Structures are given as structure tokens and as C-alpha cells.
């Protein structure tokens, strides 16, 4: 049962943390088991020598199977992994050097300094391994890599644009998760001491998946609980042993209907009860601390922001920061963007407006790398960026927000912002493994939260925030990148008057610090008030560009809008 917990934790990393549906965990477990078995029986290696080799093999298998997984999306991934596990099982049966359908038997028991570990000794070994894996999982969760995984799981696109390299982190998840599963496999092989290809097939994989879903997907406690319960369940039901499968299936269905987060998942009935009781217990013991203050009124939360500081608009004789030339994007026969050329200078607030469907968001998508362009080029800080993936572009200093907000819902506000900061500093694996609990970057995150008036919500789960705050969170997250250029996509939509004013001030203060801003807006008044220059798009083409005053008087623009406000 400890063995299954370890395997479950491995799957937890791949599916629970990084959100990659892997229905073929048996492959990794089997790789570890077979590797260890072959090494100990065939090559005569000792258990302790075979162990790391087997782990490496499992990890490599995770990596290799992770590669194709990068190309496919969710459902295809699930089916792909099903296919992989069947192929794996088939190969194990048919290729002779795996021992064929009978598998490999008489695997020697693990030995410690010469004498074989008895039942108790092995139990101790498994428990040690389990504790180790739990500790490691906890550590990873708290490290930057865990944040990256959470980001990818919550909203891969958003993670991409704030600089998290999705492919790379997914592969990390696969490799590490596979190694855990492989460890489980090695322990299994030396426990039963006789393995067959049928042990690691699809049923086993589903069994493990059921464990983590049952207990609570994405949680350590869930994985362990699931493993324990599901291993003992058949025992408990032995008295109705004829109906065991029926009960098993029924439990699955019932659980999915009523508690899909798993028995101990975050937010499940049982877990909430347990945590509230725990909190009550804690506060009772510690005495009453001051209850956290309620959400402060908006006005009171805006002390440090200067009003009226517009900052000087850039003079014309500077080198442009961003430059697009004949940028185009087609979808089938439709040209969403048609040879658009714009130039944005440093510390400029540049507006992009136009009727619906004019191609404004498409332009942003091209600029941030979310979509490839069909024609033309983009230069940023002098070098070409068209064709680069979003996380690279983010790394170069462009941040963006989305028209429909994409927060990392399950994460706290602090974590959302940390994600942006983290991707900038901790992209490499080595850095990613550092814990983020006491990191200096938290101070930086706090500063950003203060600027965007989100300081009071630091611990709040992002999904609980109202739209206005979510928009600010998007900006805060993008600020984590410390970008030179920030793209704001309709950030003012849905904001109250007071919120809009705050945001205006924020944008101006950002510019004062040296940032360049491009914004898409529908609100004419704000656009005219805020922007230094504006480009107007209509049906994919740029029909005007200039200062607000010029735009307002442009005949083409007026024609396109047919009744837009003619006054600032």
C-alpha cells in the first residue's frame, strides 16, 4: 500500500500539479519494475545499484513520452497515454528479452549489508521511501517549479505569456513524476518478486488515477489516502466479495457525482470540515489574534499614487521601441490583419482603437506571440520577434493582459504575481528548484501589489475576486516581468468610475517609471485622455494614426465609427 502511494504521488505530479492528463502511469511503473528486475536477475546487480538505474530509466521514459504529449491538447493527451500503455504492455509481452507473458520471476529480495530484508525490513524501506517522496513533493510544490506547474495547469496560455516555458516545465513534470512511479515499480518488483506485463497495463493505470481522484487530485494527502483506501477496499468488502467490482464502479460514479474534488481535495466537504475544525483549534490554543480587516474602501487604498502626474510624452526624435511592418494575419480566406504598420516609441502611451472585429486583439496576439503572423515582421528593441513563442517574448520584456481575464484561479493573488517574477528569474531548472517561501522576490511582489492596490488581497484566492480586481491582478502579474512594454487589452471594461480613475493613475505612473504602454480600448474618453498617440484599425487595416486630436477630426475615422463621440 505504501508502494501504491508512491506511484500515486508520481501521477499526482504529472496530472495533479501540472494538469497533464496521463492515463498511462503504468508505463513508468513498469519501466522501473522491469529495469530493476532485469538488472537484478539478468545482470546480477544488487538492489541498491539497480535502484538508481531503474529510476533513471523510468525518468527517461517519462521524458520520452512527454515529448509527444507536448503537441496535443487535453483530450488527445488522455487517449494518447491510453494508447501508450497498451503498446507498452504489448511490447513487454512480445519482445523476448522481457521474459514474455510470464514475466520475470524469482527477483531477489532487497538486501541490506548482506542479509535479505524480511517483511518488516521491507516495510521500513517502503515507508522511508514514501516519506522521502512526500517530502520531495512538498518541497517541489513550494518551490518555483511548483508554481510554474500550477500556472500551466490553471491557464496554460496565461502562463505562457508571463514567461513560463510550458514545454519545458511539462517535461519536468513528466520526468519527475515518472521517476516517482518508477520507484514504486522497483519496490513493487522486489516485494512481489515476480512481475508480468499485465501488472502495468491500462487497468493498473486507471487504478492509480482513481486513487488520486478519489483522495483529492493535486494534493499529497489525497494521493496517499486514495492509495490506502483503494488498496484496502477489496479487503473490507470481502464479505460481499461477489459484488466487489460493482461496488468499486459505483463508488467511482458516486464520488464523481458528489465530490469530484476527491475526499480530501481542496474545497471538498470533508476537507473543509477538517480545516475549519483545525483552525478553530489553532485559534483557541493561540488565543485570539486580531481578525484580518475587511476589504478597505477603494479611496483609502490609494495613498501612494500621485495624481495628475502625466509625465512627459516622448519627443519624436527617439528610436522606436516597437515597430511592425506590414503585419498580417489570415485565417483561411479572412484577413484579420492586413499589412498593419505601426511604430511605438519608448515611454509612450499608445492606443489602438477601432470597431469590433477590427483586429485589435489579433494585433496583440501577434505582438505577444500567441499567434503566428502570416506576413510582415515585428521588431522589438531592434531585433525581430515574430515567430517567437510567447514565453520568449515575455522574457524579452513584453507583458500583456487579456480581454477575458485569465487568472490562475486556484492560486492566491500573491502566487499569481510571483509567477511573473519567478519566470523572469527562475526559468532554469536549477533556479526553479529553489523554494519560494522566503524569497526576496516576495518583497518585489508585495511592492507590485501595493502599486496596484491589491495589497490587502495578498492571500485571497484569485477566483474569488470580482472583475475589477481581477483586471488589476492581470496587470500586476504582467508587471512581475518587469517589462519594458506592456499590452493592455480592454483593461477598463467593466470598471466603476473610481476604479477607472485609479487605473488611469497607475498607467501614468508606470509610464513615469519608463514603461511603454499600448492599450486597446473602447472607452473613447479614457483613450483620448490617456494616450499620446492612437492608431485606428478597421477591418484589419490601419486607417489612421496620430494624436488624439488628429484622430478625432479624421474623416475616415468618423466614417468608420459612424457616430463616435466627437469630443474628448
Amino acid at each position, binding site marked *: 500500500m505504501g508502494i501504491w502511494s508512491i506511484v500515486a504521488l508520481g501521477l499526482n505530479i504529472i496530472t495533479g500539479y501540472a494538469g497533464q492528463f496521463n492515463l498511462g502511469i503504468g508505463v513508468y511503473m513498469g519501466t522501473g519494475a522491469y529495469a530493476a528486475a532485469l538488472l537484478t536477475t539478468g545482470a546480477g546487480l544488487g538492489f541498491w545499484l539497480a535502484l538508481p538505474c531503474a529510476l533513471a530509466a523510468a525518468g527517461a521514459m517519462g521524458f520520452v513520452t512527454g515529448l509527444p504529449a507536448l503537441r496535443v*491538447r487535453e483530450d488527445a493527451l488522455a487517449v494518447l497515454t491510453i494508447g501508450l500503455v497498451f503498446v507498452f504492455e504489448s511490447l513487454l509481452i512480445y519482445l523476448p528479452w522481457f521474459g514474455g507473458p510470464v514475466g520475470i520471476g524469482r527477483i531477489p529480495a532487497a538486501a541490506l549489508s548482506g542479509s535479505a530484508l524480511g517483511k518488516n525490513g521491507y516495510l521500513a524501506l517502503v515507508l522511508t521511501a514514501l516519506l522521502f517522496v512526500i517530502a520531495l513533493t512538498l518541497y517541489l510544490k513550494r518551490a518555483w517549479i511548483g508554481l510554474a506547474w500550477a500556472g500551466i495547469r490553471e491557464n496554460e496560455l496565461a502562463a505562457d505569456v508571463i514567461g513560463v516555458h510550458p514545454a519545458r516545465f511539462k517535461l519536468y513534470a513528466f520526468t519527475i513524476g515518472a521517476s516517482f512511479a518508477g520507484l514504486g515499480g522497483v519496490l513493487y518488483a522486489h516485494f512481489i518478486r515476480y512481475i508480468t506485463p499485465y501488472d502495468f497495463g491500462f487497468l493498473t493505470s486507471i487504478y492509480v488515477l482513481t486513487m488520486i481522484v478519489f483522495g483529492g487530485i493535486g494534493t499529497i494527502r489525497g494521493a496517499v489516502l486514495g492509495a490506502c483506501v483503494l488498496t484496502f477496499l477489496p479487503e473490507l468488502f470481502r464479505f460481499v466479495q461477489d459484488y466487489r467490482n460493482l461496488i468499486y464502479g459505483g463508488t467511482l460514479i458516486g464520488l464523481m457525482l458528489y465530490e469530484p474534488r476527491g475526499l480530501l481535495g481542496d474545497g471538498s466537504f470533508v476537507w473543509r470540515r477538517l480545516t475549519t475544525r483545525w483552525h478553530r483549534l489553532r485559534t483557541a490554543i493561540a488565543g485570539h489574534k486580531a481578525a484580518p480587516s475587511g476589504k478597505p474602501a477603494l479611496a483609502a487604498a490609494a495613498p501612494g499614487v500621485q495624481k495628475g502626474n502625466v509625465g512627459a510624452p516622448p519627443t519624436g526624435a527617439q528610436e522606436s521601441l516597437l515597430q511592425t511592418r506590414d503585419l498580417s494575419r489570415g485565417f483561411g480566406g479572412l484577413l484579420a490583419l492586413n499589412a498593419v504598420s505601426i511604430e511605438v516609441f519608448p515611454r509612450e502611451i499608445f492606443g489602438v482603437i477601432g470597431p469590433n472585429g477590427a483586429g485589435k486583439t489579433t494585433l496583440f496576439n501577434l505582438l505577444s506571440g500567441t499567434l503566428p503572423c502570416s506576413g510582415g515582421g515585428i521588431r522589438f528593441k531592434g531585433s525581430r520577434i515574430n515567430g517567437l513563442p510567447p514565453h520568449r517574448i515575455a522574457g524579452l520584456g513584453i507583458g500583456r493582459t487579456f480581454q477575458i481575464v485569465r487568472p490562475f484561479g486556484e492560486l492566491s493573488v500573491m502566487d499569481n504575481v510571483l509567477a511573473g517574477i519567478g519566470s523572469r528569474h527562475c526559468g532554469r531548472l536549477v533556479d526553479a528548484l529553489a523554494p519560494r517561501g522566503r524569497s526576496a522576490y516576495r518583497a518585489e511582489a508585495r511592492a507590485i501589489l501595493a502599486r496596484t492596490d491589491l495589497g490587502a488581497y495578498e492571500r485571497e484566492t484569485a477566483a474569488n475576486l470580482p472583475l475589477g480586481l481581477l483586471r488589476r491582478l492581470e496587470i500586476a502579474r504582467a508587471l512581475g516581468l518587469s517589462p519594458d512594454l506592456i499590452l493592455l487589452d480592454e483593461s477598463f471594461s467593466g470598471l466603476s468610475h473610481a476604479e477607472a480613475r485609479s487605473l488611469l493613475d497607475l498607467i501614468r505612473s508606470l509610464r513615469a517609471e519608463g514603461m511603454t504602454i499600448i492599450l486597446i480600448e473602447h472607452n473613447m474618453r479614457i483613450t483620448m485622455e490617456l494616450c499620446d498617440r492612437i492608431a485606428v484599425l478597421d477591418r484589419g487595416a490601419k486607417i489612421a494614426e496620430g494624436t488624439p486630436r488628429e484622430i478625432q477630426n479624421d474623416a475616415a475615422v468618423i466614417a468608420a465609427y459612424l457616430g463616435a463621440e466627437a469630443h474628448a
Partner: protein
Amino acid sequence: MTLNLLLQQLINAMELGSIYAMIAVGLALVYGVLRILHVAQAGVYAAGAFIGLFLYQEIGSFPVSLVGAMLLAGALGMLIERFVYRPMLPRPRIVALIASVGLLICFSDIFRIIAGPNQLAFELPSLRGSYEFAGLVISRIDAVILIGTAGIFVLLWVLLQKTRLGFEIRAAAQDLEAAAVMGIDVRRCVRWIFFISSAIAAFGGVMVGVLYNAVYPDMGDMIAYKGLALIVIGGFGSLLGTVLASFLLAAAETVLTTYTAVPLSREGVAMLFLVLLVLIRPQGLLGRA
């Protein structure tokens, strides 16, 4: 290999492909609209076979039993949708998948408890024997399967392209929310989709039961996962792609398992195709990128 043999094998492959297609099309329909991987379809397939057998033993008329099985299975499918899948729509997709697997397990066990673990005979004296022409042999059952499948697909095509319901289904498959906003009764569409795909699956189950003269609790097992593979290979949600994939896979399986010594079982071959195809063309044969 003589031409005669080649043609004969082609016929064999087509018969196998028809069976696959029947299951897979139902899966594609469900996936197209609800984005759910309806693994439990295999349970409905087996249920169809059992119901068909039972009805035939009671009534004695095969056509009536067949139709009866299709109708009852269709109802069963609707029940599943109503009580298992509908509550799960707002939840992450993996929830539905696991519930589906749970359903399949339950089905198998229910069959085993009711009908016993051994296979039951489904012999139809009227379908014994075969037709021969031009040196090719088609057994009566195979002919019924081929014709039946063709007929069902024609009906399905007509339904989807020429009727209002079909139009609604296609719209819902494109965008569920938009369709709802446009005034399409999405719930009704979904009910019908489950009814249709379950009925088709039941047809497949009964025919396979007669073909192999075996109705047994686990008969859905391999179909379940092969069906999934087929909708991926065909391109998620593309019915034509799924049908195409079914026949191609049947042909590949036939050739590979009969003539070559690949170190894989028939299922292994199917899954290998799946893996390879996903690598080369992730959107499937006829799916959109």
C-alpha cells in the same frame, strides 16, 4: 497472393471496420457535442447484446429483438446522460471520464451477476450459411452487418444533413453555448444524441454477438478503448473521419496480424497507430487544426 484472396481479405476487413465504425461513430457524436469521452458506450454495446439475446429467446423474432434492443439501449443511454453526465458538465473533463470508466466496470459486473461469467450462445439459424459469387465467400451474417451498417450511416447522414434536429446537433457540436443562445434546445439535442449513439452501439453489440455466437460480460472491454483511439485518429468530433479511421484501422489490423510478425497483438497494433498518428498529425485524419 491471388486477387481473389486479396478481395476476400478486403471483405473481411470491411466487415471488421463496420463494427468498429458503429461503435466509434457513437463516441464521436457524444464527444462532438459534450466533449466527453464516453467510455461507458462499450457497456451500452454489451447491454444491447444481452437485451437482444434475451428478447430473442423470449420472442423468437430476430428483427423485433434487434429493434427492441436498439430502443431499450437508446433509453439506457439517455438515462446515463441524464443522471451521470449532465451533473458533471460544469466540472473538469477528467471527472466524466472516471465516472464513465466506473460505469463500464459496473456494467460488466451487472452482466456477470445476472447472466453468469461464461459466454452465452446467440445462434440464428436463419443467418447461417453464406453467399458465394465470383469465388468470394460472404457469410450471411457478414452481409447483414455490412448492409446494416451502410444503412445506418445513410440514415445518420440524412438525419444530420437534412433534418432540423440534425442541424441543431451540428450547431451544438460547433459551439454549445452559442447554440443555446440561438434558441436551440440543447438538452433535447443531447438526449437525442445519446439515444442515437446508444442505439447504434446496441446494433453493433447484437450483430457481434451473433457473429461470434458469444455474448459475455466483458465484451465491451476492448471496444471501449479502441473506440477512443478511433475518434482521436479520425479527428475529434469528425464523423466522417471516424468512419474512415475505422476502416483503415480494420484493414491495417487485418494485414498486419495475418501476414506479418509484428510483436504486437491486434490491440497493440491499433494503439500503435494511435500513437504514431498523434505524433505526426495531432488533429487526426480529418480534424481541424
